[in-house]
């Protein structure tokens, strides 16, 4: 068992990394029973504070029966209390029903209360009887806002989403259900751990990896069923074998088929771009976050791709914090991009590859039209939206936007398009932006 190492784990996370560890995150990380995790927290809390008082702060869960609070807030008035004054008497009830007794059974109200360490005694005194007390979380400083704790469990969800609760639930001490029915056709798509809390993993310890999720090495997946190989492949190998990108396990294959047509076009164009991305070692946390969101939308088989990125993302513990905001912003951008169904012809691909250090833009417009460049002239066919107005059967005027193909021939793309890849080394986003601008001007011309 990994029991022996819990002190190390807690010391690193609580004391060094200043993270909040709840019994559930501990239980998941070490794969131990939740009861055991609670005991570990208690033990750690006691020993650390005996060494250095106030070094670790705890929150407790107290459950039991609370004393009746003041009547004003008492939600449970029994029938007798008020029967008289609110409804003096409702005659139709009494006439139709002589034995009108509002059975005024006393309803027991148990409470489960989350308490800060400082308030523990106060809180205890509000209880009539206490069934259990345990430590919910440990952190280094007093939690001003207990809601911070929800972040921990959110991370938990994203970190351990790969672990099938039906399989591991017993380990965690979850109540088991023998009758659970789950469809096998669809596997719940795995939200990839975006801002992976790899801070836990940065502390890779050789002693316990057998028990711990092997994320420690930052590229592997906890799920033993899945092939472990791909994640650990070097970016270079991946580049040479683009087929790895679409190496979904057989389970995710049906998911792919489910995808809507809209996305399938993205998915097809994806591998190439992905390749470039994984070849950029300077990947920072934020693009990976944004990327991740996009992938969630578009395709399900790619989360594996993100592991290398997220590993690097862990370089700073608070990167994840700020990345969330940025992620939101990115998401918005992303959505906007998605909404555009008109793709710009894109000549930027080759230069992109030439400087791999460049950040990949959130989304590259995919070339869907055939364009040939010949002697300074580009010609080909492209799709344009045309407005058509006509009268329908009932005599109304109907304006429809229709996609039509038109052939064109023009000079080489304007300078901005060409320069873009060179100039935009620091911020790759500009590529997307300029593309957007073009589209806008396209619309505004009408």
């Amino acid at each position: 068992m990994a029991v022996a190492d819990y002190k190390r784990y807690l010391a690193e996370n609580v004391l060094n990394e200043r993270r909040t560890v709840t019994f559930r995150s501990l239980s998941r990380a070490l794969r131990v029973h939740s009861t055991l995790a609670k005991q570990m927290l208690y033990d750690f809390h006691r020993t650390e504070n005996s060494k250095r008082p106030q070094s670790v702060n705890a929150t407790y869960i107290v459950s039991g029966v609370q004393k009746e609070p003041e009547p004003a807030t008492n939600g449970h008035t029994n029938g007798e209390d008020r029967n008289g004054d609110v409804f003096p008497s409702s005659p139709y009830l009494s006439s139709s029903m002589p034995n009108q007794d509002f059975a005024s059974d006393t309803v027991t109200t148990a409470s489960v209360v989350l308490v800060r360490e400082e308030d523990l005694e106060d809180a205890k005194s509000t209880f009539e009887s206490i069934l259990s007390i345990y430590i919910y979380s440990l952190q280094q400083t007093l939690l001003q806002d207990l809601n911070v704790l929800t972040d921990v469990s959110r991370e938990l969800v994203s970190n351990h989403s790969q672990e099938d609760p039906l399989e591991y639930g017993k380990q965690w001490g979850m109540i088991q259900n023998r009758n659970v029915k789950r469809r096998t056709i669809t596997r719940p798509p795995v939200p990839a751990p975006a801002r992976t809390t790899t801070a836990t993993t940065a502390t890779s310890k050789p002693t316990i990896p057998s028990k711990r999720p092997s994320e420690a090495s930052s590229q592997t997946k906890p799920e033993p069923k899945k092939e472990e190989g791909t994640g650990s492949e070097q970016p270079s190998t991946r580049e040479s074998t683009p087929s790895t990108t679409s190496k979904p396990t057989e389970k995710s294959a049906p998911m792919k088929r489910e995808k809507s047509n809209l996305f399938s076009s993205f998915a097809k164009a994806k591998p190439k771009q992905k390749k470039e991305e994984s070849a950029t070692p300077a990947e920072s946390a934020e693009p990976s976050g944004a990327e991740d969101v996009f992938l969630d939308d578009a395709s399900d088989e790619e989360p594996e791709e993100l592991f290398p990125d997220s590993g690097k993302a862990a370089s700073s513990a608070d990167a994840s914090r700020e990345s969330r905001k940025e992620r939101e912003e990115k998401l918005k951008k992303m959505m906007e991009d998605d909404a555009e169904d008109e793709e710009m012809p894109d000549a930027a691909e080759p230069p992109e590859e030439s400087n791999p250090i460049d950040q990949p833009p959130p989304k590259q417009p995919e070339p869907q039209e055939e364009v040939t460049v010949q002697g300074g002239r580009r010609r080909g066919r492209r799709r344009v939206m045309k407005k058509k107005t006509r009268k329908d059967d009932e005599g109304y005027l109907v304006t429809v936007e229709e996609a039509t193909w038109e052939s064109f021939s023009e000079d080489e793309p304007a300078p901005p398009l060409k320069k873009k890849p060179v100039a935009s080394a620091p911020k790759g986003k500009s590529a997307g932006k300029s593309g957007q601008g073009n589209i806008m001007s396209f619309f505004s011309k009408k």
Partner: protein
Amino acid sequence: MATGSAENPFLRPPSDEELAPVYRAPSSYNPLHTFQLPSGQDRHYQQQYGDMYFLRLAKLKPAVEEIAVETWEGFSIAGEHARRVERVLDVRQGELCWVAGTIYMDMPLKPNILDDLTKENFTLAPPPRPTYLDPTQPELTQIMLEDESGRLRLTGTMLRSTQLATGAIVAVLGTENSNGDFEVIDVKVPDLARQPRRWERDEAPSPRKGTGNGKIAFVSGLGITGTSSDTLSLELLADYLLGYTGSPSSNNDGNGPSDASAITRLVIAGNSLGASMTVDPNENAAASKKKNGPKKYGYDASAYNASPITQFDNFLAEILPSIPVTLMAGASDPANFSLPQQGIHRAMFPRARAYCSGPPAAGETPEPGWFDSVTNPWEGDVEGWRLWGCSGQNVDDVLRYLDFANSHGLVEADGDGEARIKIMEAMLRWRCGVPTAPDTIWSYPFQTHDPFVMQACPHIFFAGNQPQFQTAVIEGDAPLKLNGADTEMTGTDDSTSTPRVRLLSIPTFKDTGELVLVDIETLEVEVIKFGTYAGQEEQQ
């Protein structure tokens, strides 16, 4: 408080003892599809609503007349016998008689489609009002009795003490006075319908081997908005349901929350999502102007906030491996707005939907899923008991018809909870779960049947999203039952026991943090409250 740390299983150093897995008792579940609307092409909205009233009257008139005959047969005042009148238009002035019909209440503040049309307000739904009464002009409230022939205005002191709402079917005894109004002496309602025996639709399982009784858990109004502030109690709730809170070893002696492994099913009664998921259009317009962004047509992905539903999906996916869930739609959920609301589509739950039953093959009723997204209102059998519940719109709306301000001065005061239980009882006795649909609750225009009429009296009748927890037990009228009063749905076995109904007004979890547990053997209720202790830090 006596619990010392020595005997506390959690406040001690880790031990090596092997912790045996805890197993949850199986759940017996057999939903009814009373409120399932035809899908796709077969769902029409062109029909007139009038049919619903006729259907309801046709269904309930025999029942209420039966009771009226029972009580008023031979009733006489000053030598004049009460005569039964078939239609409301046949009532003659000055004659003691009784007649059955549908209540219609005309109230000053009630939304009126004709008014809206004349004022050319077609577009916006009227804002919800706390009450339809106008306390300054009580005389504007008129109560009428109508049937297919016409309407009769009711009057008399009796009405003041009787709670009625549009759509209830009643029989009234009285005379028509010189104004043409009907002076009411007494009112009768259909009273409880036949109550099925426990396990009537299912085979009773062999007695449980496990110790202790099972529980059904009810919660409503999770109100997930996607911000971090509302999820802490939700975490605690999930912890509890998954068994992380209680100590499995310690036996519950009634002093704390029941062992969560006894809970066999969770029923979520609506309003699982809090904030509306789309941004207010006005607000949005302003924002987009400021943003100066590209103009979008149709679905705007940036205006859609998926966070609430994602959170909710995560919550469900977390608890589903351990506990089966019945999810009812509610007013703020992404389902259709008019009752009966159809279940939230499983596509909204990318993670939890693995536990749904598969899409039904054509023409057959699907087997209920482990995660069952059901209609609102909803009816079904859980552990053999018949449950009938709504996400609260029915109670909220009837409350607007009734005048509780008189008795204690404040309209929405604390005593309002008691009123809600009374309303729920009244609805059972009216045999109509949503009496005010289609008048003031939006409703599907049913043509062939009125599903809101209760064919059978449930054992547990619940309404979600109420301001506070309330419970009561009501009983049917034993003597009347034995006389065979209830011919409408007489079965062979209904005289054997008087119906007993457990009423539950389930509080909004977001505000109260309360989970309601009902014992599946005794139907006893207990409440578990989740929350944080506001310590000195916060009180300052």
